[in-house]
């Protein structure tokens, strides 16, 4: 936002960056080699459902387009999550599907509604879990590793940051690494 918009008090909703998501599949190979975490085949998109008929129509269209392949749920903060399931090794397929949701929202003029998207990973042997969260408005990624009882495994998150640094645009401002407790697909 420019200083003129700030001065005149007319901040506009920010448009999302959809393309960086496609960098994910190639980065996963590196992540897997360095940490032993493998994709679970689950990914989800979180967006804000606007009030009114226009968005309700759009939501119906998106669900018709993706059919049975997505599961819808609401979180306690008023965002809608669409969960996509794919085979664990078909990650690029999963990303394409997430992109289908994004682009239909954007083409209907609701691009600013997109909050974040996540793809989840797990270590089969020791139960570690990690989600790579994509922030649409920043075009950046960050790792989120939940432990039981709303605690975060910061060590694993920072380790993942080190691994992914060269592969993905990572969020530099750590205060924007917000926790997505109980997100579908985690």
């Amino acid at each position, binding site marked *: 936002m420019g200083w003129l918009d700030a001065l005149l008090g*007319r901040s506009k909703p920010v448009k999302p960056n959809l393309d960086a998501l496609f960098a994910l599949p190639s980065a996963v190979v590196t992540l897997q080699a360095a940490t032993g975490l493998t994709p679970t085949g689950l990914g989800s998109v979180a967006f804000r459902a606007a*009030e009114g*008929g226009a968005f309700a129509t759009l939501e119906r269209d998106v669900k018709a387009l993706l059919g049975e392949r997505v599961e819808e749920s609401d979180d306690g903060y008023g965002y809608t999550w669409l969960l996509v399931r794919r085979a664990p090794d078909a990650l690029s397929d999963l990303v394409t599907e997430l992109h289908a949701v994004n682009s239909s929202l954007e083409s209907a003029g609701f691009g600013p509604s997109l909050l974040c998207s996540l793809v989840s990973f797990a270590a089969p042997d020791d139960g570690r879990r990690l989600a790579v969260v994509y922030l649409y408005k*920043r075009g950046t990624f960050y790792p989120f590793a939940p432990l039981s009882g709303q605690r975060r495994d910061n060590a694993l998150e920072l380790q993942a940051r080190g691994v992914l640094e060269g592969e993905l645009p990572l969020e530099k401002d750590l205060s924007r690494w917000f926790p997505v407790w109980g997100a579908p697909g985690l």
Partner: protein
Amino acid sequence: MRTRFASDRGLTSRMVVTMFLLGLLYVVFVGVLIALGVRALTVLVLAGGLLLVQYFLSDRIALFAMGGREVSPQEAPELHGLIDRLCALADMPKPRVAIAESDVPNAFATGRNQKNAVVCVTTGILRRLEPQELEGVLAHELSHVAHRDVAVMTIASFLGIVAGLMTRFALYTGLGGRRNGGQGGVPIGLIIVLVSVIVYAISFLLTRALSRYRELAADRAGALLTQRPSALASALVKITGDMARIPTRDLREAEPFNAFYFAPALAPGETLANLFSTHPRLERRLEQLTNISKQLGRG
């Protein structure tokens, strides 16, 4: 690609006119002071100093005065969760989060820029509002931060401070100092007092108008951010309805900070002329939110 989030041209142009008039008044006032040959520089430096203190300490002053305490994500996970998500949607850095122990249902944002911003809510508002309504209120406050309202309103009120100081300055020095050693003629101090009082009155009205426009702008930006204008409207109705029932002692403490508030805390039975108020009338705010709601719902 189309957008559903149009800006309000009427509001923008009213704001520009107000700012222009304030700027014009400022130039004229300084011009008059210089023409009268007063030590205007002393007053300007003094007022500038006050302004800088207010500007740089705004977050701490407001938090201290309201008894707000910064809370960590562990202490208030829901509040932090709401703000985290709103900041991600709006692409802005996360402000500090504080809670004030007060039954007055209100919220305010302060701080000179996005990095030093604090958003504070009272326990009264947390108790009364549903999560969706609270989110609307927080989005309104975050818009104040994004619009840098502390900086804008501090600069806008500068003129009022200068005029007020000028009046006192002239009164203390005894209205004396006639021009050219003073044989007859009007005392120069009297002219200064008159000019300052007039400037003060006009700048007061203009600043208040500007404040109301900026509230409307924050309502608008907040509603577009959450895309639930009706939740914000319902929060407004709830809070302003509750305002009449709050204890008076708390109100007196809160009043000096009305300008940074979500809804002003008016003492029961008190009616202020619209011209003097820092916030627009409830009906005006609701009307705008209804329009945004219609705009969003259009297919």
